[in-house]
């Protein structure tokens, strides 16, 4: 697949409202800079993130997907992220088993105070995915080949 000239990685990050989303806000308050490629979806808790959302994001055209939440033990809802941890340890392996590059799906614990970690993580992940190039796995070639645009 030839890489489009102006291709920019499209990265979606599901972030919990209490830690990572707050951390991202703090990064903003501190005017930290990171790539524009990252788009946050706010959810109450990382345990709200259904692993099917990840599949959906890849299918619809994301190049990288992240799930971020509070550090284990710090969950606003006490135990939510313990479930997150199990779910995504398994889902990540299943995705990789089906051929997704490990960097394309990552989970991270980033607290509300870790603005720098948020910035660094997003910068690093964007760089990794830029390196990998556009993702075509799990994507709807069918639509792309025959969608209204191409007619």
């Amino acid at each position, binding site marked *: 697949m030839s890489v489009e000239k102006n291709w920019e990685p499209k990265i979606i990050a599901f972030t919990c409202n209490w830690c990572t989303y707050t951390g991202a*806000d703090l*990064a903003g308050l501190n*005017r930290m800079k990171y790539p524009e490629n990252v788009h946050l*979806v706010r959810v109450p*808790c990382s345990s709200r993130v*259904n692993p099917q959302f990840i599949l*959906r994001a890849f299918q*619809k055209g994301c190049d990288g997907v992240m799930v971020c939440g509070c550090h284990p033990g710090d969950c606003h*809802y006490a*135990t939510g992220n313990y479930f997150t941890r199990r779910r995504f340890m398994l889902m990540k392996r299943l995705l990789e088993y089906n051929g997704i590059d490990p960097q394309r799906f990552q989970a991270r614990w980033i607290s509300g105070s870790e603005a720098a970690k948020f910035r660094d993580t997003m910068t690093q992940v964007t760089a990794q995915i830029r390196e990998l190039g556009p993702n075509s796995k799990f994507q709807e070639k069918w639509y792309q080949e025959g969608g209204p645009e191409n007619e």
Partner: protein
Amino acid sequence: MSRTGVIICHCGTNIASMVDVEKVAEEIGKIPGVVYSVTNKYTCSEPGQQMIKDAIEEHSLDRIVIGACTPRMHETTFRKMLKGTKINPYMLEIANLREQCAWVHTDKEKATEKAISLVRMSVAKVGSNKPLFTSFIPIHKKALVIGGGIAGIQAALDIADAGHEVTLVEREPSIGGKMVMLDKTFPTLDCSACISTPKMVDVSAHPNITLKTSCEVEAVTGYVGNFEVTIRQKARYVNHDICTGCGLCETKCPSKISDEFNQGIGERKAIYKLFPQAVPAKPVIDAQNCRKLNGSAKCGVCQIVCPLQCIDFEDKDQLITETYGAIVVATGYELIDWTKLYGEYGSGRYADVISGLQFERLVNASGPTEGHILRPSDQKEPKDVVIVKCVGSRDEKKGKSYCSRACCMYGAKHAHQILEKIPGSNVYIFYMDVRTPGKGYEEFYNRTREDGATYIRGRVAKIYKEGDKLICTGEDTLIGKPVTVKADMVILETAMVPARGVEEIVSKLGISMDGDHWVQEAHPKLRPVETQTAGIFLAGTCQGPKDIPDTVAQASAAAVKVCGVFSKEQMETSPMISRVNEEKCCGCEFCVKCCPYSAIAMKEIDGREGNRKIKRMVATVNSGLCQGCGACTAACRTGAIDLLGYTNDQILKEVDALCL
């Protein structure tokens, strides 16, 4: 099709300087369903809000998207604003264009593109928003305090003083807990009983407090404002309604039993008051040891001597169910059973190796020795006393890994008391560290050292008996040499552990414990007196080792939390909670397992199978308990349980919108 209004905020220049807001508004305006798309200088300002209200009227909008600062800032502001319009406050989404776009990017073109994506995602999401309505649950302004130690007493008094009814439940026949066993309190050396017993009396006399001693919590259901609690009133065999507490029965009772209040030093009767100042000041019969009740003899002496015929051998346990709006857990602590853990200290074989609490009773004027420090084995006054700290605490191998917090100070207090009461005595304190973080604590420790206590840094490795001496060997780690002290008595300053039965109470309440079985607070820093369950609060050592001032402080804090709950007639619950689609629910109970709040239960509903009417089980969410985390939704394979405000549909729409 929906009619969405979009407002892109300049935020002064905060957003507008890095994002081409006009372009964003223009691009978004092209999305079908967006019938109004404009920019605004300061959307959160009064004129900004008015503009939205006007637009709603003028363009018959049914949904609003605002591209502005983080929703964490003004979501509530805008929701409040919408309350005054025909749009439901939850038909709103906010795209974070400031903190997560303008402020963090440097390339205006790319930032503008990202802003368009972010707003488009919000537009897609809001299209699936449904009006949500807060519901109200009534608050029963009556509190239940579990545990009648100083924490429970303080919490009960504070709540009662604020004008609310309180029921204080204590499983022992008297309130008072551990504090009333203590002799003096550090660092001021107040008489412990002298400051705690008046509070106990206050409790019994307080018009707002119902005192339930010899009672245990049997079952708890419901949720904040509406806990249905079943309390077991254990049989006392003495009618407290009539009894005046004259004590005649106690003097005539022939059974003598080791006195637990005095830590086994001394004896009590089978009909007894826990201690002289007990509240209520009325006796109960210890059925296990009563000759009549355990069937070992006919006896019944107490019944004969009682002038008011209070004794009722037929008394039975009773269950009482009441509704409470809030619960304070103050179940306290007990000391670790060192005899099972420390064979090297004699496993309890040596009578003169005693625990700190036993020493408190020995040195207490109302204790078995009337305050004379006499060693249990031969009632002689000890001259050389060894105090060992950190027994069972900070000892991962044998006991607990945590620091028990109060031992350094009461160890110093014990040393001080010995040196004061026994002239010419020597006190050797084996310690690992000395921790004195408290007002006047370091000064007190220094005073003890000035009094002549010898602090030896190191653990006692072994205690054995030689004649009537106890030989304590260990290493002084400061000089790196072995030490041996010949002592007349050894006091082990043992670790606090959660009171027995805490596991049961925790499971009845549906709250959680940490690995050491201390009750888990909602957040270790920011919500230390709350639990994960709304309306259940923590006071005192049930949450972790504490000294008295901290215990009392937390009790008062818990009381304030309770009063906070009681400050309203009814409580607004967030509508962004989970909801079950009963049609789809297959009753597998996976959601139940994932809920941190035990907010999901199973219920039976009518269904049809072919032509047959059947009953089937489906999940149901308790709106009073659900906090809206959504852990259940990702566990539900069918998607039968969904989180309102963050539905599967909404999130999928957001994902799709990004991927255009």
